[in-house]
């Protein structure tokens, strides 16, 4: 290498490019140290959602035959149906298609989702429409003095 020539010797790293790399690395590390906490922060925390297994819907006498009622079951709605012959059936009221809330249709004795016209029978099976899966069924028990029984819905 001649004097005054700033070409680096072969195989050596020039001071400038070394410092440039260091600067780039520093900026990259800064960006990463900013972005990682932000990414973790904007990810919604997994809430310890209280798992509801049982809910008292009310007294037997409150539910007439051939009607349905939507009630709160944990954080999601449930559908309680009293059939024409007086039996109780309960399902999740969340349609398996796109999460709309289903309702009981007393004229046809079917469960109907108004969003996309999905129909389920009283066992929760899909009759027609877009729902891909049957509705999850819950167990219904009657508890208490005869005539004063509570309708209790539980997850099976």
């Amino acid at each position, binding site marked *: 290498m001649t004097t005054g020539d700033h070409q680096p010797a072969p195989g050596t790293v020039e001071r400038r490019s070394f410092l440039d790399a260091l600067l780039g690395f520093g900026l990259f590390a800064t960006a990463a140290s900013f972005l990682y*906490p*932000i990414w*973790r*922060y*904007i990810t919604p*925390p997994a*809430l310890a959602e209280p798992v509801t297994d049982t809910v008292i819907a009310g007294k037997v006498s409150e539910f007439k035959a051939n009607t349905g009622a939507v009630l709160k079951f944990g954080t999601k709605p449930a559908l309680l149906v009293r059939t024409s012959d007086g039996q109780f059936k309960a399902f999740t009221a969340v349609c398996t298609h796109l999460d709309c809330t289903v309702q009981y249709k007393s004229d046809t004795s079917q469960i109907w989702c108004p969003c996309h016209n999905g129909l389920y029978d009283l066992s929760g099976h899909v009759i027609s429409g877009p729902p891909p899966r049957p509705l999850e069924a819950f167990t219904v028990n009657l508890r208490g003095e005869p005539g004063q029984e509570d309708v209790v819905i539980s997850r099976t």
Partner: protein
Amino acid sequence: MTQHVFAWLDERLDLSGLRAFIAEKTVPKHRHSVWYYMGGITLFLVGVQVATGILLLLYYRPSAGEAYESVQFIVSHVEFGWLIRNLHSWSGNLLILMAFVHLFSTFFLRAYRKPRELTWVTGVLLLFVMMGFGFSGYLLPWNELAFFATKVGTGIAGAVPLVGDFLVRFLRGGDDVTGATLTRFYGIHVAILPAITTVLLGVHLLLIQRQGMSVPPSVEKREKAGETIPQEPFFPNYVLHDVMWWYVALAVLAALALFLPWELGKKADAFASVPAGIRPEWYFLAMFQTLKLIPSHVLGIEGEMLGVMGFNVAAVLLLVMPFLDRRAADGRPNRIVTLAGILAVIYLIVFTIYGYLAA
């Protein structure tokens, strides 16, 4: 890659003007140059506030029933939520501190003199807006201390003659500090003040870019006498220096946020007794302490009113300083202004410390 993108943009937008501006822009170098960076640090902290503030919005709920719980949720359940909140609280405080340092450095270096009067005016207005941010943001966690401090703080507005009662109702969104106040302060904090800041800061920065850095009168005199003042290229030299200072600010901020977590305290309860040692944020402490010291009546005028009017007069004087200090425009020294500035700094420091010790 970057060059391709730039070439693509250049072809469509003709960035030659901008390129020339950046290439030719220089910043004077002299023994007072270090003060140039204070505004840059303040700007950096504004950026931190915007970023962390937006993040807090994702989980914060502005209602009396949920505000405290949502902040509790942020600091205890959301990952790094404690970090974001601590950064926002600490950065807000550092921002006001740096804004004061920036204000007094430009004051003593007479940077406000012609032709930079408007830069000064927008800067002083920005400081007031920042204090408004501090005041409105303080209430948002809806804790006991903030609740009572806001009661006192908004009550002081009642001392303003004629419009005092209206002002109090206007600030509180009713006769008392309630959930309505919280919603109102929230709106002010996240929408109204940011909008005002955007405009003021835009003008402030545009003026600085347009007019270049001011040099102190002493340096200007040397320049006029024929001496050449060394200049430093704006890009990359000055920008890198600026970023270096930002790293210093970041280090201080991170240390504070990590080792001195901002307390949340107890949830606000309008029917609880006022906690002892109630006082506002430190940047209002000097004013708070002054109001405490003024007798209830001075020459037949209500003391509180006198104090509030005094602060208003001081604020206006500060705002119009470039138009009062005519000597600075001609490059002549003005002892009265310098003395007033020194007294103001001493007053602020002494009364802030006094306020702390007295509480």
